[in-house]
């Protein structure tokens, strides 16, 4: 805070104060603000240290040990890079988990964003009932992460579920989708896409900021709907698309509940729904191999961090921030 910003009491005339004295008062005030700041921040600081930083360092250490909750930490052995070696070369399920997670994120996230953008654009031009529609489309985002919804999904895509009834309507015969190694993962993706409401709400807010004059001007110039979409909507919306992409990607990598429920905790059939976090959970809390699971967690952290960095650095090439940009 500079002197100019310092609030002075206008009611009392400010007496001339010796410079040294004034410095002392400024220092005192600064100390008081420091004290207040850190006092208000203290619960968060404690959490940062105790719930985030120390556990992170602890898990880095544990990833080089054979720690298991069955023995005290002090009696676990330093095994060097063994956990990492095993992960990359001796655990086929690990690579299944990586594959499943990458496929899930690469397919489900863009489809979810496409659905969100599509419905947002339909809604944006609708005048009446927009709040009701918006709310109802958003509802799955609130419910979809729950165990209850995963159970519903399990029921819908089982052999005698609603989806097959729908297919038989068209004379098609379905199968037990969740028990099929090829189709179990797409079933999970569908559940993720079903929750497109949250990014849709954000897209809708972004679309509201696009000036309508741009569309009118381009209509005068004879541009069709596709040209308008690719030359006006997409560029102007790119900051919002980027924001949703980062959030949904990070979120997509962490899918656990639906995979756990639909495979009954196994990641099956044949590892086809073994999301990374599910494999980590099984290693740590079922096999009680916490050293190994810690190594998995750190690789996960590094990869997700790397992907975030890559997203941000490629963002420079396709995200447009102009003066007349969205918001």
């Amino acid at each position, binding site marked *: *805070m500079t002197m100019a910003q310092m*609030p002075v009491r*206008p009611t009392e005339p400010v007496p001339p104060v010796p410079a040294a004295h004034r410095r002392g008062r400024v220092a005192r005030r600064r100390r*008081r*603000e*420091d004290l*207040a*700041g*850190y006092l*208000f*921040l203290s*619960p*968060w600081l404690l*959490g*940062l240290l105790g719930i*985030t930083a120390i*556990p*992170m360092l602890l*898990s880095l250490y544990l990833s080089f040990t054979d720690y298991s909750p069955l023995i005290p930490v002090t009696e676990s052995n330093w095994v060097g890079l063994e956990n990492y070696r095993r992960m990359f070369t001796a655990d086929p399920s690990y690579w299944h988990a990586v594959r499943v997670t990458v496929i899930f994120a690469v397919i489900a996230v863009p489809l979810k964003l496409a659905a969100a953008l599509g*419905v947002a654009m*339909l*809604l944006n031009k*609708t005048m009446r009932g927009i709040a009701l*529609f*918006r*709310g*109802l489309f*958003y509802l799955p*985002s*609130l*419910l979809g992460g*729950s*165990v*209850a*919804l995963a*159970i519903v999904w399990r*029921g819908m895509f089982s052999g*005698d579920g609603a989806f097959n*009834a729908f297919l038989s309507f068209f004379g098609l015969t379905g199968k037990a989708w969740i028990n099929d190694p090829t189709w179990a993962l797409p079933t999970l993706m569908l559940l993720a896409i079903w*929750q497109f409401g*949250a990014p849709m709400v*954000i897209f809708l807010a972004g679309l509201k900021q696009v000036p309508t004059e741009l569309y009118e001007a381009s209509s005068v110039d004879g541009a069709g709907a596709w040209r308008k979409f690719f030359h006006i909507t997409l560029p102007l919306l790119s900051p919002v698309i980027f*924001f*949703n992409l980062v959030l949904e990607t*990070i979120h997509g990598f962490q899918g*656990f509940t639906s995979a756990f*429920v639909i495979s*009954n905790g196994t990641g099956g059939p044949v590892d086809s729904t073994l999301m990374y*976090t599910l494999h*980590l*959970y099984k290693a*740590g*809390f079922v096999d009680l191999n*916490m050293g190994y*699971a810690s190594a998995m*967690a*750190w690789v996960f*952290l590094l990869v*997700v961090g790397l992907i*975030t960095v890559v997203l941000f650095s490629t963002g420079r090439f396709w995200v447009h921030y102009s003066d007349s940009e969205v918001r």
Partner: protein
Amino acid sequence: MRSKVVRLSALILILAIVLYPLFWMLGTSFKSPAEIASNIGLVPHQFTPGNFAEGWHKFDVAFGRFFLNSAMVATLTVLGNTISCLLAAYALGRLRFRLRGFWFALMIGTLLLPGHVLIIPQYILFRTLGLVGGDFPYLPLIVPHFLATEAFFVFLMVQFMRGIPRELDEAAVIDGANPFSVFRHVILPLSRPALVTTAIFSFIWTWNDFFRQLVYLSQLKDYTAPVALTLFIDSTSESSVGPMFAMSLLSLVPVFLFFVAFQRLLVEGINTSGLKG
């Protein structure tokens, strides 16, 4: 005019598909075991409300206990999140102190930190402290929320507080207020909308949360509703499908009620901060 009709029809069709699973759940939870296999439509021919009583008493502990456990964890989490995140947000958003920018950047960094990474060392930490299991096994689920570890809410409140005119603080300071009385008399009353949004999202997310509760709860009587629901999956006999859907449906009722009551606030909440629902 024609395009308007097409658009509206498309929206209604998509909405019907999106809401179908919810109606199907509603219908199935009232179907008899025989009907679950034969009638896959929405409406049960034979209305079977007995599924609810059967599901409620399916396990050695009644489902009411699981709901109470869930409600307790969620309520305490709401309390912890609103208090601790408000304090942190006031410091980061309104006060000037040394290293504030550094802490703010760290807070943003933890926003993107995948929480599953920390579950194992946190588990070990809480176990070392003797907080895992025992008579009250919920502390590891609750304590982190009293320490503002949910950075989303800190961020949401910082964003909100930036919208409160600074002149209000300055006027109060001129009147002799210190940072504590500014907090008490200016920021706290004006932050109510952000507090309500945080409270609702905290409740819904904790109510739906599964991963942590699965890790920390091992006794049947301590189970929360989501953990208890997974017990149904183990017993996959036809007869338990109706009760399973009935209890699943019940477990979504609180979330649905919150949605109905606070729909606008929730939608605005994700807009200001990009919160995930």
